[in-house]
């Protein structure tokens, strides 16, 4: 299968400050990719380089197998066949909703324009507001109009720059799912930039976790959570603690929680010490278990409790327990290890 977007060994930056360092990834047609990372990691620069607003210092970008950015040459944004949804939506305040959506269709005959505008407004559920001006709409409605406007010219790639960051927290995941279903319905290829992992999980097929201008790991949300390749990804995605362990053989380590057997070879010699990642869902609360720990802190989260526990050895772990199990602070509760993915890091 050919790819729709290729970013190859991209270096880029502003003035004399290098922001991106050898960034590479590709997307197949219809795939939704996501650049996820803390602020200042360069994720927005990747997006702007794909759009053509920033030049590539080195490496290249291909859209539909056509070179659009190299170190010598940069196709201007208006000729790249991209659509973009901005953080502030950037709707044109002097144009009605339908004229905003029509804005990108200026090369098509009038009648086709009208039909496409109607179609797009129907898809995002904004037909009733065709005659409204942007300032009359709520944030979520403006978001939909911005999406319709970006999708109307059928771009090869849709770029979304933190599109939900101006939204209420409760709305974000719902909107992310809505946008995903619209993109999937139209079979659009898209790149999303966000710092919110729940948004990334809700929308993207492929997630690139970035830090300090480089991609730390690329994969599905499941992979990133359960098979982090490095400490940064382990720490950035989800919660968890890192505890010391002694290597017993190629697939087994021994910890204060007991012996843990993994499926993959551990890259350390028996007898040496490594670090093991323990997620809250790796530890199950079980009153019948012989292992126990003391509740140090707890957080009620609706469907479950997140307990912070201290074991007799002094090592602290987290435990996710069903919400009916309400224990007091300083109470001793039984726990059991239930770990499917053994993640070890060598000690430095």
């Amino acid at each position, binding site marked *: 299968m050919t790819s729709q977007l290729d970013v190859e060994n991209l270096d880029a930056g502003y003035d004399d400050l290098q922001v991106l360092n050898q960034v590479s990834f590709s997307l197949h047609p219809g795939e939704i990719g996501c650049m996820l990372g803390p602020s200042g990691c360069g994720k927005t620069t990747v997006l702007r380089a794909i*759009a*053509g*607003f920033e030049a590539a210092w080195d490496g290249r970008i291909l859209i539909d197998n056509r070179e659009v950015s190299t170190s010598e040459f940069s196709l*201007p*944004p*208006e*000729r*790249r*066949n*991209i*659509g*973009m949804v*901005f*953080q*502030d939506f*950037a709707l*044109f*305040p*002097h144009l009605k909703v339908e004229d905003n959506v029509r*804005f*990108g269709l*200026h*090369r098509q005959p009038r009648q086709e324009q009208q039909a496409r505008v109607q179609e797009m407004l129907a898809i995002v559920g904004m037909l009733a507001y065709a005659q409204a001006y942007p300032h009359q709409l709520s944030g979520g409605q403006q978001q939909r109009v911005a999406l319709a*406007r*970006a999708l109307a*010219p059928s*771009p090869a790639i849709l*770029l979304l720059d933190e599109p939900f960051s101006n939204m209420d927290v409760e709305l974000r995941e719902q909107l992310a799912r809505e946008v995903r279903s619209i993109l999937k319905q139209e079979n659009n290829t898209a790149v999303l930039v966000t710092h919110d992992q729940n948004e990334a999980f809700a929308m993207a097929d492929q997630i690139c976790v970035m830090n300090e201008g480089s991609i730390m790991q690329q994969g599905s949300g499941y992979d990133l959570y359960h098979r982090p390749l490095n400490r940064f990804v382990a720490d950035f995605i989800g919660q968890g603690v890192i505890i010391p362990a002694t290597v017993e053989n190629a697939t087994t380590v021994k910890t204060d929680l007991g012996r843990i057997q993994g499926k993959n070879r551990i890259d350390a010699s028996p007898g040496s010490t490594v670090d093991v990642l323990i997620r809250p869902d790796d530890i199950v609360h079980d009153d019948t278990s012989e292992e126990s720990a003391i509740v140090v802190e707890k957080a009620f989260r609706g469907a479950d409790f997140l307990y912070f526990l201290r074991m007799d050895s002094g090592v602290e772990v987290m435990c996710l327990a069903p919400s009916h199990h309400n224990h007091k602070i300083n109470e001793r509760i039984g726990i059991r290890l239930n770990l499917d993915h053994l993640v070890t890091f060598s000690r430095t």
Partner: protein
Amino acid sequence: MILLATLLSLPIFTIASFLLYPSSEVWQHLRETVLNEYLLNSALLMLGVASATLVIGVGCAWLTSLCVFPGKKLFAWALLMPLAFPGYIIAYTYTGMFDFAGPLQSWIRDLTGWGYQDYYFPEIRSLGGAITMFSLVLYPYVYLLSRAAFLEQSVCVLEVSRTLGCSVWSSFYRIALPLARPAIVAGVSLALMETLADYGTVSFFGLGVFTTGIFRTWFGLGDGAAAAKLAAILLMFVFTLVIIERWSRKRARYHHTSSRYSRLPQYHLRGYRAVLAFCACFFPLFFGFILPAGQLGLWALETWDSMVDASFVALTLNSVMLAASAAALAVALALFLVYGKRQFSGKAVIASVRVVATGYAIPGTVVAVGVIIPLPWFDTRIDSLMSGHFGISTGLLLSGSLFAVMFAYMVRFLAVSVQSVESGLGKIRQSMDEAARSLSYTPTQILLRVHLPLMKATVLTAFLIVFVDVMKELPATLILRPFNFNTLAVRAFELAGDERLADSSTAALMIVAVGLVPVLLLSRGISASRAGS
């Protein structure tokens, strides 16, 4: 762009360079005789205007933003109207009303049978009179900025102070006032800049301050260098104010503790309190606008027939043409500068836009002197160049023509249009440009389809404000206009100077009417600013 900024700052540097110039005999003479008087008068004038505008401006702003009393909505914008009066016009209107031969004193004499010197009546043409005149027309600056500051204040802060046991008035003193202080200081500095810049009022009242001194030294004693030296000292005063103003505006930004607005608390005033509030707002409006405008109207009715003739029409046309072309030029240059700044945001470019922006603070008299000193030098150069190469003598090509006036207007008023255009362009966010480009528009198409429709109103406003400022401008026009070229402002001033107060009223009324336009625009903005958020 940098070239333009250099050119426009030429007058300022010319003046400033005279600080280092060796003193002439005339200068020695000035120092021994009148310089102290100028300093003292200017200082007293500033002190008086500062305290009066402070009390009127802040008081009215507080009442109209946080209290409810009859007429509040009307006052909120009507209190700006005195801004339409140039100082010199209100000054001679009041003189006409209150001096010895005026209607008020004649009426008192008729009523009591007193004669000359039988009674005490305050002399209008005095320092105190000048302070009153300036305060009446300049308090809107303080009012405008402090009202904006009160409206922006977070309600929570005020409410917290109430829950901590402050009464309405003590929460005003202890919370609202300190929070609004930077804005108030900025407003007072603006009013003081205008006071220092004024020539018409002080010359009409015969007060010895810097602007009148510059005129006297230049035209009476014929010493350009000494006049420039006076101008340089005035400039130092002005720059101090500019620095204070900028500094307080900067601080104002950090004073917002919260960006969440909700409805402001409204203190409902009843009974005598409501009456007091009504009077407090009514008096400035009455004495600052209604009374003088009424008097001008009466005079204009009386003298209408004799004054409005072909020469008056020509005068009006002159003024309108001059103002319109200056405004068009100012807007064009402002667009050039502001788009340049957006496109190439280098340090030199930003600095040059900043230099241009200081022009507004510089008194017209200073600008005029700064323009008239270097221009003849260029004239002789051009003249010798042209007659040497082509045998044509160009004479006083620049300094003797409207070019000099135009140049001075640009130095002084370009800042206004730049500010307006800049705020307009600021509303077109960078992401809108980028959105249009991602929708396959070229930069030129974006300019036409996105910027033009969005910038129309701003450009029009900038044009209007410069237009009105030029219509009202007096000292620079007076010094730099070509021989026999008159404008409404100059004519009104000349007639008033000849004690033909009633005759000047038609021209004066015209200027005030034109001046009302931006004030009304401003007040519309005021009532809309809060409703939208």
